[in-house]
């Protein structure tokens, strides 16, 4: 049994230590180590595991699979940007590697010539412009909501409060469509897969975040299916004979069901684009010297 004197020394030492730890850091302390919690200790949305299949998918009275629901990219039915669990991925690149697109040499050269600032200024995420089709389903961490009724499907997009309405009755394209961010999309069913054919996509959209631009000849074929209650699968083929040497097809990308609702997202305070525009001016100024 320790003596009273030792207890006193331990208590005093603990008190001094507690006092030292309570002294606030100086107003600014430069440190190489992260202060505070580690990423895994920080709060995050609770689900880091894949959802179970959840039973068979629902169907509309007309017999077609009902794709309706609020869908998050990945398999967890939610999004945790703090812990970024692997289950949040839409596909496992080791199990199903996705081949890169095959660019025409002139297109590759154009991408190579983009500076980091050019790349940032071309991104929808910096400009607050719509990602368009298929960007909104290829490069979008925010949830979407699909509302399917007989003959049409409505896609609501949290990011920038976008939407598109696609007829699913097998009709033909508009004979002279304007270029739009979502393109002219027409759908038909092939069994339990909804196939959406899209043309006339605004050339300001990119297909990835690293400069994959497209021409006015781009033709996109999207495939949506719901293998079970909790999962939506998206696969897209991009044809663009001006920019690509051959069509590119994504792997099957998973989305998972959420029972909440979309939030509102308007870009009302975008300082980033101003920063990059300033950087671009400086770069252009240096080039002309």
């Amino acid at each position, binding site marked *: 049994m320790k003596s009273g004197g030792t207890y006193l020394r331990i208590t005093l030492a603990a008190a001094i230590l507690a006092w030292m730890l309570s002294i*606030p850091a*100086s107003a*600014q302390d430069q440190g190489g180590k992260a202060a505070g919690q580690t990423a895994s200790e920080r709060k995050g949305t609770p689900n880091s595991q894949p959802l179970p299949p959840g039973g068979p998918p629902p169907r509309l009275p007309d017999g077609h699979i009902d794709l309706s629901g609020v869908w998050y990219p990945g398999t967890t039915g939610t999004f945790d940007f703090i*812990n970024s*669990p692997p289950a949040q991925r839409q596909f496992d690149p080791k199990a199903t590697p996705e081949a890169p697109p095959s660019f025409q040499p002139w297109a590759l050269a154009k991408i190579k010539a983009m500076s980091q*600032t050019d790349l940032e200024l071309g991104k929808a*995420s910096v400009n607050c412009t719509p990602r368009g089709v298929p960007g909104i389903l290829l490069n979008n961490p925010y949830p979407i909501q699909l509302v399917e009724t007989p003959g049409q499907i409505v896609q609501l997009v949290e990011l920038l409060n976008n939407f598109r309405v696609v007829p699913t009755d097998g009709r033909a394209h508009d004979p002279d469509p304007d270029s739009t961010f979502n393109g002219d999309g027409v759908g038909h069913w092939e069994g339990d897969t909804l196939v959406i054919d899209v043309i006339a996509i605004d050339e300001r959209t990119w297909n990835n975040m690293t400069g994959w631009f497209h021409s006015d000849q781009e033709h996109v074929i999207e495939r949506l299916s719901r293998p079970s209650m909790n999962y939506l699968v998206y696969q897209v083929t991009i044809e663009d004979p001006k920019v690509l040497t051959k069509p590119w097809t994504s792997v099957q990308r998973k989305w998972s069901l959420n029972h909440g609702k979309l939030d509102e997202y308007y870009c009302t*305070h975008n300082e980033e684009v101003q920063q990059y525009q300033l950087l671009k001016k400086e770069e252009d100024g240096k080039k002309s010297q």
Partner: protein
Amino acid sequence: MTTRNVSWGATVIFTFLLFATPLSAHHAFTAEYDGTNCATVTGTLTKIEWENPHAYFHVDAKETGGSVASWAFETVSIGWLKRVGTARHDFEDNIGKNVTVRACMAKNGVKNRGAAETVKLEDGRTLTVGTDYEHPGKAGEERNIN
């Protein structure tokens, strides 16, 4: 190796590198902020701009020497803030109170500006307002969250 083979090889390698670049790189972060230059700033919370694509909050921090510097900190989008339990009122309720911010500093000569990771409040709670910019990729695959 013929010239033709070299150029095809270079094309393959470049294409690989282009797409090996993680889509996860935070779009603004690498050009605007320095993940190797992060600091803790303590001061009084003065303002919150609760908007997209990023919220901004402002802190008046006392410098050594007694002057006060006004800092602007950027957060992730408000959709993500809400989903990790950081609410608008968490900021509004703390206007005028002391906060301790962990943030990575702006580049390009911009002063008193950072991309914030966490905000510790007077009541002891810590708000998560950004990813772990100092240790990207440590918590699993980093995602492009914008």
